[in-house]
């Protein structure tokens, strides 16, 4: 019973990791990465590591997506301001 839960979550994590790599657009990848982060927290709970799960939730749900999206925004803004004068 417990094994079934472990297998389900492990397979979901593997699928999410594959999807995160397959998304070539960084903004879309950030969406999948935040999903992967929350799912990893669930996996860590199943593996009886609530401390690690908390750590992963704190970092993966909001901090990492915010960092990536801010970088994407900066790069896009640069692209736009460069097109202007040329």
């Amino acid at each position: 019973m417990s094994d079934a839960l472990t297998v389900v979550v492990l397979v979901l994590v593997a699928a999410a990791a594959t999807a995160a790599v397959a998304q070539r657009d960084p903004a879309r990848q950030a969406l999948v990465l935040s999903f992967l982060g929350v799912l990893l927290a669930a996996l860590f709970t199943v593996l009886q590591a609530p401390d690690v799960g908390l750590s992963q939730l704190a970092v993966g749900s909001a901090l990492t997506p915010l960092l990536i999206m801010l970088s994407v925004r900066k790069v896009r803004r640069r692209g736009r301001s460069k097109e202007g004068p040329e």
Partner: protein
Amino acid sequence: MHVLPYLIAAYIFLTGCYGLATSRNLIHAVGCLAVCQSATYVLLLAVGYRDGGTAPVFSDMRPGSRPVVDPVVQALTLTDIVVGATVTALLLALVLQIAKRHGTIDPDELRELRG
């Protein structure tokens, strides 16, 4: 079941490496590196797991009443997650600096610029 979690960890690591090597965008590459990192977390925690065990946190249970999983690997993983996030931030800062200096974040175009 005995090796499945280890194999999944190896698979996630290889997937992340594939993404890193074929990435056309440095921000995407940093995301792939984050995937590689998560493979190490899965591996470490799988090594420390014990069937029927529970977390070695005794605020809501009597010590010794239930078998517990290995706390050492958990401690390693938990610090690594937060430190890994700041290292991701450092890499993203490098990417922004590259975008500023060279006007592109495609690794192939960067190589042509240098050559």
